[in-house]
């Protein structure tokens, strides 16, 4: 066994942290207060090479392996980048762009990947529906084949980047009589007649990412916009789970390191009863719990990433374990961070308040903790 990163990977991580602290973090609080997507920061992620890190250089990517890609996500969290931007990046690069890269034709790859890798275009994925969350097979959105076209009808829900996306990977039933085998994937560009996004939802956290419905009313797509093969959409959607359980969880690991530093600095500077509160054992215990969680989560996340680099099929048990652990345990850690800051932690002046709200999504997004428990217990 070897849990180490290469020298190059560690140097790259430092570079990402340095870049993010300088170029992104200074505006994070302001954008969260306004509930605005920071498009400039998103483009900078593209310019730095993060949005397309794992795509081939020939398509404008960085040619990095999965572990390095996940490391970039951890670095963004460690630098203090907000959960909204890292979520927007995750939905864009892994749920949308990677699905096109993995299952698209050469023409589709050449058309979309360079624009998505650079950040010129923003991508999203439309899978969930108002009445079909974790129960994907019950989706009602249909794609009816009519000659050389497909006609989409239905509504997608909880779509990260929905209102701002230039292109969407959308899942719909080409055979409504079937369950999973009836689902297909499509590429839908903004401006396609019959396709619109709903207004951004007001959310508790990750407020800088824009979330909305995607609405399809007799939306006519050329048959060439089918992604991969008919009836394989569910399989494609499930393949994004590997990224969901590694790259999309990685910022939570990084945030823990950020919180530990933030809380330690506060505890050293805040004096009560004649001494820094960091001298009290109860505060040390809270700091310890933050680190204990972070170290635990790290190994789970990189195990998924490393296995993907080895070309192994996803181990659904290990993936669910990673998601369940990070999702459920991260809440206690961010709660501790707020408590440690006292009244200040309850205000927007200190970003632990935002991090607390951002983290609340962890046990919900990408498959709730309850779904993970269901998967694990069935596989035991």
């Amino acid at each position, binding site marked *: *066994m*070897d*849990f*180490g*990163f290469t020298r190059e990977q560690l140097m790259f991580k430092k570079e990402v942290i340095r870049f993010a602290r300088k170029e992104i973090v200074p505006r994070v609080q302001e954008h969260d207060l306004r509930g605005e997507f920071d498009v400039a920061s998103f483009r900078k992620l593209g310019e730095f090479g993060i949005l397309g890190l794992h795509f081939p250089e020939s398509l404008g990517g960085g040619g990095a392996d999965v*572990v390095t890609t996940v490391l970039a996500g951890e670095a963004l969290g460690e630098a203090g980048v907000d959960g909204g931007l890292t979520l927007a990046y995750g939905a864009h690069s892994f749920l949308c762009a990677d699905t096109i890269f993995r299952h698209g034709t050469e023409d589709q790859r050449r058309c979309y990947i360079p624009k998505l890798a650079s950040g010129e275009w923003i991508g999203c994925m439309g899978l969930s529906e108002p009445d079909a969350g974790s129960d994907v097979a019950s989706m009602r959105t249909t794609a009816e084949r009519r000659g050389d076209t497909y006609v989409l009808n239905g509504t997608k829900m909880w779509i990260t980047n929905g209102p701002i996306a230039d292109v969407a990977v959308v899942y719909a039933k080409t055979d409504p009589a079937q369950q999973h085998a009836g689902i297909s994937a499509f590429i839908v560009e903004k401006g396609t007649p019959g396709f619109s996004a709903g207004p951004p939802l007001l959310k508790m956290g990750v407020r800088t990412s824009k979330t909305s419905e995607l609405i399809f009313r007799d939306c006519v797509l050329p048959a060439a916009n089918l992604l991969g093969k008919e009836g394989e959409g569910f399989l494609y959607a499930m393949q994004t789970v590997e990224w969901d359980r590694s790259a999309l969880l990685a910022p939570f690991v990084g945030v823990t390191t950020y919180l*530990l530093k933030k*809380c*330690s600095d506060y*505890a*050293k500077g805040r004096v009560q009863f004649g001494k820094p509160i*960091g*001298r009290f*054992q109860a*505060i*040390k*215990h*809270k*700091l*310890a*719990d*933050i*680190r*204990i969680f972070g*170290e*635990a989560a790290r*190994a*789970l996340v*990189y*195990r998924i990433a*490393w*296995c993907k680099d080895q070309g192994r099929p996803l181990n659904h*048990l*290990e993936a*669910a*374990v990673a998601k*369940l*652990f990070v999702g459920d345990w991260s809440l206690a850690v961010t709660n501790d961070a707020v408590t440690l800051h006292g009244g200040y932690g309850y205000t927007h002046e200190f970003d632990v308040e935002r991090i607390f709200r951002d983290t609340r999504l962890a046990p919900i997004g990408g498959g709730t903790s*309850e779904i*993970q*428990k*269901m*998967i*694990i*217990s*069935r596989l*035991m």
Partner: protein
Amino acid sequence: MNFDFTTEDRALFEAVRQAAAGREGLPELLPALAYTGYLNPELSGTTLMGAMEALASLDPALFLGVEMSARLLGRALARWGSPAQRARWGAPLAQGTWIGALALSEQGMNVDNEPLATQARREGDGVRLEGAKSYVVNAPVADWIGVVGRLEDRPALFMVARDAPGLTVEAALRTLGTDGLPIAGLTLAAVRLPAAQVVLLTDDHLEVLRLWENQVLIAAALGMQAAALAQARDYAKAHRTGGRPIIAYQEVGFKLAEMLTLHQTSQLYAYRAAWAADRNAKEAQGLTWCAKVFCTEAAERVAGEALRILGGAGYQSGGAAEQAYRSAKYPQIAGTSTEIARVKIGDEALGYLN
């Protein structure tokens, strides 16, 4: 990066399981384990952690007896003893022909934060040792006890024979769990030893000893988790109610999912800490404390949840979950206790750790 054990690692784990199967006492078990290479003092890192986990999952109490003998004392002698000392004690301990004990804890004080009270002073060609040790695993059955104390200003390991004049081993303690593990205090009143029975140490060596002890306790916690989880899982699949196995009910299946999550997370934690310690023991101290807190607390939680799944079947004495539940306090208390470990982790984050 590599998250896999090697084929050789897995072969060793299986050999350890086979060697331990059906053997109930240290005199019988130690030589059988020696034959597999498990007691080799050079064994380290993730290979050792995986092998310890394999043994601990069969019998956590017996595992602790093995480790306190051959691992802690045997490895200290192999690493820091003179050639003569390695030949005299190290080899028999590694071969499993002698049972050893390591006396580290001091009566009435925390060895993590205070200097050792057990002291020796030079007397003629040897030393005269005075002190009192508590909670010494294997003390009632050991052929040799390695007593950690100070010789003048320097830490040292004093090799004391079971029948040494001045050594009194108290009666074995009755304990909450770890059934069958002999633990006792001992007093050393003017115990005279020749210089050849003294291994001079440094303060760094003491840190490493504590790290090894914590690693052993982490592995014990993994074993308790594995045993409790296996019993609960098997029961939940076999026991039926309402026409279905109870694992099919979310109140049971979800509990098992949480237990398995804790167990897998603990395993990775333990392996990673062991890997880090193999590279740089001093730098890995913090990660090892983190792993110890997590894994040992998870053991209690997993065992407790297992009992709830098992119902009355788990409440009966003798089951793996019942034993794990009672034993899970031991690894939290022994070594660097959970509370002290959290303070140290916090101190490290704050830059307060010296």
